[in-house]
């Protein structure tokens, strides 16, 4: 079994993390297929915001929290052999929040009051990294159903890759916060505590008491759900350090994403969270950085003006020697550009490899991946069976 196969066999939950634009969603889907190629059972990929063509290739025509199975015929049609079932679901933040409210509301009145509150939608969409938190809520739920052997979560793009790790504790903090206590004070007693008075005055002047009252109304409702929310957030937090959970950090080997990946990998380790693997995506072939190719490129550049161009033009037949010479010159001269990038990539790859037990690379592929065959090809690279 490959390194990746071991990881996919030994864990029940995989969180795919990394900075935006590195191909996290595609890698998450490919990991799902890799798992199904090697193992029987059911694997679920929970994705956040797939490119439209990828979504339709996966059978995700509409946003919805309900998992759908990738049609086995889609695999067969592309000649992809799978032993297990691959299911996919797309995270729907709004529906996810509504679900949380329904679950934690103590009664129908509170539930309906929250769901119809004008601030509700506006607040939940911005509220304390709610995407990240909801992604993990969903992971928790889907894992708890026991319906799947492995759940892979593609984490939402965020300003900071670390914010996903902090999302549950922020939720817990919020319910224990002074803000919530302060906001609800006017309801419990019309007398403000001495400590809150100057702030209330400032806030009142700045924001207007009506707006504060709206917020307070909303949070009083919210507080009725405190115990449920906090309990769940604790469970979700525990999931992050659960031995059945592993993180896979995805990155490209460009400067900024590599930097973010290194930071993320180090932070995971520092927090006793399990870093299963780092995946370098869109990697250039390593031979590009080698000296053999560089020597040939230099020689080619010297010879491109002379007889070589004539020989090449003759062999091709019917092409101009001058143009052939131009082409050879460009091909040789431009080689250094790509070789430089490849050399830098190889350097960064070694740096990252030292941080994780498993380091995987997926080569740059022409075109974007938007079908099952492309994902299977990627899965092959990840499993090292290509």
């Amino acid at each position, binding site marked *: 079994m490959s390194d990746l196969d071991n990881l996919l066999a030994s864990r029940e939950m995989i969180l795919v993390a990394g900075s935006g634009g590195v191909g996290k969603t595609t890698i998450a889907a490919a990991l799902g297929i890799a798992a199904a190629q090697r193992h029987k059972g059911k694997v679920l990929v929970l994705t956040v915001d797939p490119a439209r063509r990828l979504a339709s290739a996966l059978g995700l025509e509409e946003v919805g929290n309900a998992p759908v199975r990738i049609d086995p015929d889609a695999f067969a049609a592309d000649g992809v052999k799978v032993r297990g079932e691959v299911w996919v679901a797309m995270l729907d933040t709004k529906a996810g929040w509504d679900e949380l409210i329904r679950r934690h509301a103590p009664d129908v009145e509170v539930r309906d009051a929250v769901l119809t509150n004008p601030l509700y939608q506006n607040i939940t969409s911005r509220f304390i990294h709610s995407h990240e938190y909801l992604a993990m809520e969903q992971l928790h739920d889907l894992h708890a159903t026991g319906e799947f052997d492995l759940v892979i979560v593609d984490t939402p793009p965020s300003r900071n890759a670390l914010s996903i790790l902090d999302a549950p504790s922020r939720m817990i903090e919020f319910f224990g916060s002074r803000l919530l206590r302060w906001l609800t004070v006017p309801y419990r007693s019309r007398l403000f505590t001495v400590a809150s008075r100057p702030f209330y005055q400032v806030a009142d002047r700045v924001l207007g008491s*009506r707006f504060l009252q709206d917020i307070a109304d909303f949070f009083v409702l919210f507080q009725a759900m405190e115990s449920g929310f906090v309990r769940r957030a604790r469970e979700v937090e525990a999931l992050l350090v659960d031995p059945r959970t592993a993180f896979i950090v995805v990155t490209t080997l460009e400067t900024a994403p590599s930097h973010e990946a290194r930071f993320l990998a180090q932070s995971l380790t520092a927090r006793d969270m399990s870093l299963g693997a780092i995946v370098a995506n869109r990697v250039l072939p390593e031979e590009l950085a080698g000296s053999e190719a560089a*020597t040939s490129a230099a020689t080619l550049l010297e010879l491109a003006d002379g007889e070589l161009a004539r020989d*090449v033009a003759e062999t091709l037949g019917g*092409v101009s020697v001058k143009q052939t010479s131009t082409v050879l010159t*460009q091909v040789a001269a431009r080689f250094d550009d790509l070789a430089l990038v490849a050399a830098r990539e190889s350097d960064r790859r070694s740096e990252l490899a030292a941080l994780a037990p498993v380091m995987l690379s997926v080569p740059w592929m022409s075109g974007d991946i938007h079908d099952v065959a492309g994902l299977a090809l990627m899965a092959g690279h990840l499993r090292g069976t290509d």
Partner: protein
Amino acid sequence: MRPALLDLDLLWVTGKGGVGKTTTAAALAEVAARHGRRTLVCEMDAKGALANAFDAGTLAFNPTMVAPGLDAMAMNTEDALREYLRLFVRIPFIGRIGPLAKTFDFVADAAPGVREILGVGKLCYEVRERTYDLIVVDAEASGHIVSQIGAPKVIADLVQVGLVRDQTQWMLDILNDPTRTGVAVVTTPEEMPVTETIDLLGRLTAETGAHPSAVIANRVLPVLFSRREQRIADRLDETLPILTNAAGSGVATVLDAARLTEQRRQTGAGHLDRLRGFLDSAPDLATDLPIITIPELFSRASGPRVVSLVADALTDELDPSTYADEATDEGAGR
């Protein structure tokens, strides 16, 4: 002649994560400063990327000079709140509101638009005070930019009374004026960044009132060959024995590299065509919304060196006469 983009008072630079937003913002600011505009560049997300771009250690709320005529700052909600309270609420002894600022932080987390409006308010305030000729904002990524620039609109809709409500109007006047405020969307020639760009351009004005003023395509690979030359390049594999004989066994890799580069270029060009198609057909957008391209630099440098190289590339691209050329070229190409 100074590029029109840099004649604005406030320029937001956004784009999908990873497309080179910070470097582009820094380079635009540098070009403006080179043209003699007193320029401030401000990082909104406090990641420190802008400080790295100028090799400036750490940036703070108070601007520091990073190049001649160019100051840089990092937005910070708490400092913005302090300044706001000092300027508008006239609360002395700001030190005493320390813990209150912390509590306010919680409100800002929960209440829609409050955190954002402090940042936007600070920028608009600087515009109004005319401390600088141009403020370039290294803004939130395209996923968050609408709630950032749109904060005053949200507040105006949600908050009925109070100081903040009263102050949204002058901010909106600045933000909604296309001759003063613009948004530059940075993308790379790749599927997701282009899709996000199209999505953002479609929503921006309706949801924030601000106007897009340019699309900047970063890391664009140049066309190396004429059509005939390309046909020769495509067939070079047939001459591999001759080439190997002349230049050694590494030639195969050199040819691979050429093929890879051309594939990357073509894939990217396809995405940029999609973007152009959208711009041509979108009825709501200014018809002359330019796509400014920054070539892939293949540079080993980082930090100020890259910013300066991108600024050089932008200086040529931003020249108004180039827009006209580009239009003619395209016309001839089709």
